[in-house]
């Protein structure tokens, strides 16, 4: 995986955890486990990206 994909991952993370989505979710206040599901999904995304990485 190239640094640019790493950058893309962070952008996704920022959109997920630092965008207006956060206050919207906080306002809606869905089930308590929602933040954990979003977190787990992001971890899965990192894992998939990392598993395709072939470092020298």
């Amino acid at each position, binding site marked *: 995986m190239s640094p640019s994909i790493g950058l893309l991952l962070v952008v996704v993370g920022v959109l997920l955890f630092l965008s207006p989505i956060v206050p919207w979710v906080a306002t809606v206040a869905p089930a308590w486990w929602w933040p954990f599901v979003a977190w787990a999904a992001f*971890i899965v995304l990192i894992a998939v990206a990392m598993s395709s990485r072939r470092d020298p």
Partner: protein
Amino acid sequence: MTLSLGLLYTAGVIYLALLFGIAFAAERSRILGGLAANAWVYTLSLGVYATSWTFYGNLGFLETHGYLYLTIYLGVTLAFAATPWLLRPILRLAREHQLTSLADLFAFRYRSRLTGPLVALFMLAGVLPYIALQIKAVAESAAVLTADTPPHLLALTFSATIALFAVLFGARHISPREKHSGLVVAIAFESLVKLVAVLTIAGIGLFAVFGGPAGLDAWLERHPEAVTALYSPVLEGGWFSLMVLAFAAAFLLPRQFHMLFTENINPRALNQAAWGFPLFLLLLNLPMPVLYWAGQAADLTQNSNYFALGLASWLESPTLALLVFIGGLSAASAMMIVTTLALANMSMNYLTLPARLRERRTLSANLYRNLLWGRRMWIVLIIALGYGFYGLLQVVQGLAQLGLISFAAVTQFLPGLVGLLLWPRATRVGFLLGLGAGILGWFFSLVTPLLGNAGIWPSAPQLQQTLGAAGFDAWTFALTLSLGANALLFVLGSLLSRPNQEEVEAGQACCPGASLSPTAGLPLARDVSEMEAELGATLGTMPARHEVQRALDDLGLPRHTRSRRDLQRLRERIERNLSGLLGPVLARMIVDQHLRLDAAGRSSLGESLRRIEQQLEEARLPLTGLAAELDALRRFHRQILHELPLGVCSTTAGGEVTGWNHALRVLTGISTDSAVGQLIERLERPWGGLLLAFLESGDRQIYKLNLDTRYGPRRLNLHKSSLEVVAGRREGYVILIEDVTARAQLESEVAHGDRLASIGRFAAGVAHEIGNPLAGIASLAQTLPLEDDPKEIRDIADDIIGQTHRINAIVQSLIAFAHSETPPRSRFEPVALNDLVAEAIRLTRLAGRKDIGYDTSGMEGLCLQGARPKLLQVFINLLTNAEQASPPGATIHIGAQQTGTRARIEIRDQGPGIQEATIDRLFEPFFTTKPAGQGTGLGLPVAYSIVQDHGGSLMATNASEGGAQFILILPLGGHT
């Protein structure tokens, strides 16, 4: 339910002893030690991030700030998602340059004597609240279980025990590379214990309090405000600031930097840690809301920080309580051990050693021992300071508050780190200004309010109120003020100052894809012993010897090497190794002071190119665009040079070999690796002597040199060219070595064939020449019986003998010609030109035309240096060629004159001359202008080859008076 203090203390000591046992076993056992390189173990060891703040303080933070507590872990997840462009480059730098702490990293990049001490001091100050937090958490957790006031004696004993274990874990001996496999395995075990403890108490709490997940759902339905209380604080602000703090803390906290980079044994493990560590944090945090609600549902009266312990007490389970206590102890002890180890190294290298070096000009006669004791002292001092801070701040209720102050402190390194990785223009002035402003902002926005609220400094300035920013949450205000001022001054300071040469080099080395340019000079030291003696003046004799030997071992160099390139590499390796031990600033200072460079003998262009190529190969950087195309072109040219069938050797002006291609490797049997870097005279015999003599000689070429090599005798052509690239400065030489052994063999065979052909031709002439004297002998013999007069008989006998001598002379000439061998050049002898030409004419006449006249001039007294039979063949071939071209009754002119040390001999016929179209091909083998079957096309090439063997030249031209003319230049010898 309460537990006795003695039990808790005993359990704690047994647990720490178990940890030490694990670390000890991992260091002693190869199998256990190998676990440290395992990606899962490495990932778990990063769990040192989860301290007692996570273990206990999360619940208190959750109670007051709801889901804001998640930011502390989501920020870390973001940082680990940035592994490819953030964590991996730092790991690369740390490994390549042996940088063992954040102070090392910044001191390496922002070269200033202030950088390291400032970073170390601020880190120390910034992390003390965090250490105090751990002591506080352990003491308070014991108080919860013993139902007593926080036992100060326990806090003190805990601190002392941790200091002892920190010394045992990481300062038992000096490990120059700072890889403690035992520490990694033990911390990974601690992380596992924390996780198991949290999951166990949460699981048991879930079933014991709620009766299972369904019960929890039912409870939440009855208490919808519980979920709302988690979400609503997110809307009150602080989410972004806390995320940024956690993002920075993920790799800038001393313990995180230490485990992530310094203790990393297997760089590939970072890939797995990029998602494995966030997963660990997720598993650790998922039960927190459940635990908190369980505490609420069970109506626990304790401080919410300790709901986990309270739940165990509520369940009346001493085992569970002990497990939770051990989990909390595990979290606190891991943090304290790793943090103090990292800070002790940093403090020793940047606060103690430079001061000592300034005072005494020498580090110590026993450097390693002093380093070890220095670190131990710092470990004890740091924990003592942490304990002192704990004593001061007992009134502070929130564990998270103390932790966040440390997070905010390390966040001040973020601008400098971004500059380090991405901005080569950043300077030390900008870094120091920015960090200074950040420290002030941090102190006045976070520390003074804490001291004021705690009553320690009641009149402390309240900056937030003073600036009218009370509407912001404290963390957003502190972060905006400190980080904003820091980043602004960092950029302005960098733009308004100029980086020095060292900074430019360091900046290039730090940016992704860049490499260090070669050192500007070669070491003045002539050998390894001299380097050792020089270093010994500061390091002490034994450490200097040890460090030099370690560097030699790392590079696989022999101790006796005198190659300047080897010594240069050795110097760099010593600096890197010392950097791991003393930090990059001291290492550079010591190496610059003692292993000085010869500025005049700076690396040649060839050497620089070779090093850049080596770095490119090692780094295997994914080049793109123009860089990729240029690299492809470079590889193509390199490949051509490497695969050239000619041997190519390039050297520096000082005679150090910088290139040695495949053909030369095959020819000499000397591998490229062993040749490159050697002084040319040190190459294996006979090559060293030969190439050095050739370099020093004024000759640009040497032809057909006979050389005895390990693969037998070879015949070589050598060519030399000097490389003058920059401002007329000689950069080195290129030597081409052509192996012409096979061609010489072929030429010899061709010459032999030509000689045989000549003998064949001569045989007919010989038969004719012998026939006449034989006929005369026969006639005389017939008249002999008829003579009575003794005088007549004697005259006839004399005539017969005369004829016999004539026959003998002819036969001897032929035999001598047929049996001629080429002697080596060393056995060349003087040959009288006059006699040689006369002999050649006689032999040519034997086989050739009798109507041709020969006119010789200017040969008297000239004496050639060479092999007579070979030179004879040259003249026979040239005369035969002239004779065949001559019209009937013509004369062949043979003239000679001396020109310096050489003889110029012209052979001119009266034939039609040579056509312009064929004049360039006359000396090609098998090229003939004669009709098929009448010429072999070998005579002139053979003559040409022999003349070259004699160091002469042969040219063909058309004479101005008509006819062809061959000009022979041959070296003159002595007198016959």
